[in-house]
């Protein structure tokens, strides 16, 4: 079946603007994760959803970052007042449950100018 889908694949925005990044997980996967990957680094955990609720948002860097998953499927990562330091690849992953391997999307490359 289809894998994890992330849109847009690339997003360029100006400093101070608001952006939304979308993730469409594999059908039936209850767990959904957001990670952020800077150039030359491994991914860093941002937030984890089990169903509709954010089970762990301890990785969100500050209150400019927020994510939702209202119907337990598609998730949106929202970044307010973007800063140049937010530039990175934002990866979404889903899994069948908390103890299953992650399936990653191809990411959204965010560039803040």
């Amino acid at each position, binding site marked *: 079946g289809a894998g*994890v889908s992330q849109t847009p694949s690339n997003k360029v925005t100006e400093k101070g603007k608001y952006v939304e990044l979308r993730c469409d997980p594999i059908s039936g996967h209850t767990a959904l994760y957001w990670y952020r990957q800077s150039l030359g*680094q491994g991914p860093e955990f941002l937030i984890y959803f089990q169903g509709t609720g954010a089970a762990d948002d301890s990785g969100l860097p500050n209150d400019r970052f927020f994510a939702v998953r209202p119907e337990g499927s598609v998730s949106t990562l929202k970044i307010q007042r973007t800063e140049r330091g937010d530039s990175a690849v934002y990866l979404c992953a889903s*899994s069948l449950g908390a*103890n299953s391997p992650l399936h*990653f999307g191809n990411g959204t490359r965010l560039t803040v100018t």
Partner: protein
Amino acid sequence: SQQGEEDPQALSIQEGENATMNCSYKTSINNLQWYRQNSGRGLVHLILIRSNEREKHSGRLRVTLDTSKKSSSLLITASRAADTASYFCATPHGSGNTGKLIFGQGTTLQVKP
């Protein structure tokens, strides 16, 4: 912060040779995972080894885990040009929810045809 440290950071070999990548971590774990990432793509899960396992095989991949040394290795035998990618080890953070992972910085492998 990143728990895993990988060695070497970069590796270049000829097709047909074996490639060995090492990963060290800091805290006690109940499992360790290896992922592959092709340039511009998401991560792909390769293998998960549990803390009570010492070695695990999957096709041309062999993973070892030494919990006393807090280290793991990934061996790719008879490498192919298609194995060119970055390889990351990852360990669960905190409670053992294997989806909240801490990734190393990765090893970039180049296999020359």
